[in-house]
């Protein structure tokens, strides 16, 4: 029954594309036009029915994963900030004035694997965007004074979330779970490195030289555009960008051999937060393990799961419980979070989570349940594509992970192929005590 619903969805969304079997269909309903310039820059254009509006994304396939040198954590993110400091041709004030004149919504974000610069603005301003974006990617220029001043904003960004226990949990979990890989530090970086950033001006020039290169970037334009026009403008504005040479060697994480634990005493008032993480598979649009883990997370941790019913709805031991395998280029963590109402019940909740994971190793999910999950994932994705910005943002994720926007279609086709046995296999492989790290955050002193 759910299969029928999913098929209807695909029929509605995939305009004019004949298909006979679900696995041959594409979840992404719009035609992807792409070209690669001689310097290696990939340019992607996606016409979308949004009269007069375009989303313009530049995806740099560099994030905190690339911060391999000691003392340089947080640099990808810091550099994202520096990209707003202007060039000779368009100094900061002029750059801002141009964005203001076109009424742009303009910003950027950085994660473990990517740095994304995004603008939504009038389609009539496409050439202006090409001009100022290509200029800053090729010709960024800032003084040491600008650099030092911006370091204050980075510290401010750290500070703004410092009261949030999840920022500290993220720091602690990575530091314990990883010994070698750069996923050991958060994207914003170790606080000691953030505080040292004002002294790293020279390194920032090296960072730009290494990573802001055409072969490491993708330009993506979604909205009221003609692909040929996008490609012609890209050729005009980006062709002078020179190919780079730096080769990244990210240390690989050896298998974990014993369970690790950590505790965080918290000064401010909080309920206990239990975090359990297992090393999991990297993102893949080919390896069924990745897809099986995605579906497993829905089986065990969605609001329809037995665990959720048990802990949140029936016994009401926790405010929430959630778990999933965050997409990463290299193997990362399958993380489970739960805010426990009573500190005395932490062990009870932990054991209930372990039992739910154990259950997936021996009890196959029913066919009906599996179809429901697959339908959920498809509808969730399809319903998110409601304007140029989320369309571009969605594709940016797949572009940073593999360099290829078609990965989205391959991944959802793979979800369709996952069997109950695949889910049992990944559960047995990954959810073992020796592959586990547990971090518990608790208030130091309970005050009523």
């Amino acid at each position, binding site marked *: 029954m759910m299969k029928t619903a999913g098929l209807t*969805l695909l029929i509605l969304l995939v305009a004019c594309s004949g298909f006979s079997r679900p696995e041959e269909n594409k979840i992404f309903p719009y035609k992807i036009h792409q070209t690669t310039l001689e310097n290696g820059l990939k340019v992607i254009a996606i016409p979308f029915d949004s009269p007069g509006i375009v989303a313009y994304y530049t995806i740099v396939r560099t994030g905190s994963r690339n911060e391999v040198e000691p003392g340089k954590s947080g640099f990808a993110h810091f550099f994202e900030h520096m990209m707003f400091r202007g060039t000779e041709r368009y100094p900061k004030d002029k750059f801002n004035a141009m964005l203001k004149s076109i009424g742009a919504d303009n910003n950027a974000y950085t994660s473990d694997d990517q740095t994304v610069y995004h603008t939504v603005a009038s389609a009539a301003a496409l050439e202006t965007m090409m001009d100022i974006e290509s200029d800053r990617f090729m010709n960024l220029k800032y003084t040491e004074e600008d650099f030092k001043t911006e370091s204050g904003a980075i510290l401010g960004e750290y500070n703004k979330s410092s009261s949030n226990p999840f920022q500290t949990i993220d720091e602690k979990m990575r530091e314990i779970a990883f010994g070698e890989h750069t996923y050991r530090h958060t994207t914003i970086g170790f606080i000691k490195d953030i505080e040292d950033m004002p002294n790293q001006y020279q390194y920032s020039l090296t960072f730009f030289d290494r990573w802001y290169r055409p072969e490491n970037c993708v330009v993506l334009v979604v909205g009221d555009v003609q692909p040929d026009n996008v490609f012609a403008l890209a050729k005009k504005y980006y062709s002078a960008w020179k190919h780079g040479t730096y080769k990244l060697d990210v240390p690989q994480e050896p298998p974990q051999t014993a369970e690790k634990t950590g505790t965080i005493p918290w000064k401010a008032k909080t309920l206990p937060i239990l975090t359990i993480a297992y090393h999991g598979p990297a993102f893949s649009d080919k390896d069924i393990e990745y897809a099986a883990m995605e579906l497993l997370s829905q089986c065990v941790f969605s609001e*329809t799961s037995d665990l959720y019913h048990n802990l949140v709805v029936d016994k009401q031991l926790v405010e929430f419980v959630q778990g999933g395998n965050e997409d990463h280029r290299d193997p990362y963590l399958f993380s489970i979070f739960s805010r426990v109402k009573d500190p005395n019940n932490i062990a009870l909740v932990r054991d209930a989570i372990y039992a739910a994971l154990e259950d997936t190793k021996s009890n196959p999910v029913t066919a009906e349940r599996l179809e429901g999950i697959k339908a959920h994932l498809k509808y969730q994705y399809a319903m998110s594509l*409601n304007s140029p910005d989320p369309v571009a943002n969605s594709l940016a994720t797949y572009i940073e992970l593999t360099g290829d926007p078609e990965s989205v279609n391959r991944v959802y086709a793979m979800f369709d192929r996952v069997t109950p046995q695949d889910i049992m296999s990944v559960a047995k492989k990954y959810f073992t005590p020796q592959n586990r790290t547990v971090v518990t955050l608790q208030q130091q002193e309970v005050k009523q």
Partner: protein
Amino acid sequence: MTIRNFTLLIISVLLAATLLPAKDAGMKFTEMPSAASPLITFRVIIRAGAINDPAGKEGLNALTAEMIAQGGTKELTYTQVVDKMYPWAAGINANSDQEVTTFIGNVHRDNLDAYYKLISSLLLQPRFDPADFQRIKDMQINYLKNTLRSTNDEALGKQTLNTMIYAGHPYGKTEAGTVQGITSITLEDVKAYYAKTYTQANIWIGIAGGYPATLVETMRKDFAALPAGQPNTVTLASPPQVSGMEVTVVEKPTRAYAVSMGYPVSVTRKDKDFYPLLVAGSYFGEHRSFNGVLMNRLRGDRGLNYGDYAYVEKFVGGLGQPPFPNLNTPLRQQFFSIWLRPMPPDRTLFGIRDALFELKNLVEKGLSKEDFEQTRKFVLNYSKLWAATASRRLGYKMDSEFYGSEYYIDRIDQELKTMTVEDVNAAIKKYLNPDNIKIAVVVDEGKGQAFLSSMISNAPSPITYQSPVGQSIIDQDKLIQTFPLTINKDKSVVVNAKDLFEK
């Protein structure tokens, strides 16, 4: 959300507000059909909010809404409802605000019939299960005790400011209520509030997207099962007047200090004067943008923090939310505010002075012709991005109807096209004021009294930099570090976060 008043109670006498929302006879519908769209969005507004909470039961409106959005129907338990919606990736969220409560749902048209049946049952025949009640009540209390008081200093600063601005006024408590208020609520209270409030007179159904024309008639018929009821009108007095700089310092463990400041303004989207003020606000502090004066001076030139913004109406921003004006949080009485993101403790007083210095400049000098033209052009273009989806368009349309104004995006277009720089500068002079302003600061435990004393003493707050800065910044700093703070000592207090939102 806003926070509950703690010690700062100012009794004002007061004129009843006259800007009540337009009220049609019977149920109200707002439709935005778009036959080609495969998606349908619902925004069902109940014209009641935290201002309708009975005394001693603060939080009842929000708790009732969550009992519907996170509860079951007469036929289905909460778990069964969630299970049914899950394959459609659909759900229903409640957003409880001061004046209205909005239920928001999106669904693909493949699943529309079954989805509508479920959400209409949730709204018309809520289950009001005792176990759901306990779960939701716990969550609401924990939100106040363990989240708002503790884990987000910026939200805490904003809530504190709201409480100060609306002390003794119906807006003066959080949308979630108070700890004692929620604690005292029983399931019978919820049932009674639902019976009184969820009526034909108060319900307002918005629908957009690719729905069949017959659906509206079906809804009209189904929702006629609600009692006719009476409009839940609450008379609003004017907020208390601001006298000098009134400061509330909130103590809690923290490494950086968040600041919010502001005061009431007497215009809303309904009024012509709102629009020049909107342009002034964008020029002075457009949210998350380097267009604003505050952002450029405090962050760009001095690296004081992550961001600095200003708003001419209520704004509830947060991680993952669009940077555009809020949907379905309309107020009959609005306020102007400045949000300074957390600063290092030794730079916070300078940052506060810097913001006030810039506000004074804005009021005294206004915008130049060039500033005005650039900002007008920006707002004209930028506002077109706010309504990129059917759900957002519907939200703005319903808000415009609340205010009794034209569709917001069109109204901006009309007003700005004929606006002059003189209009903007006159509005700034009329509505903005650097001398009488309420200031909320969240500081580390044990540091509150010293911080307040440093404000009252008016001692200079010099700033140093890690690298040389331009002479113009140095010259300006000399003025900023001694910028006079006219603190009203009698209306300034230090409080501990654990005492907020209690009753």
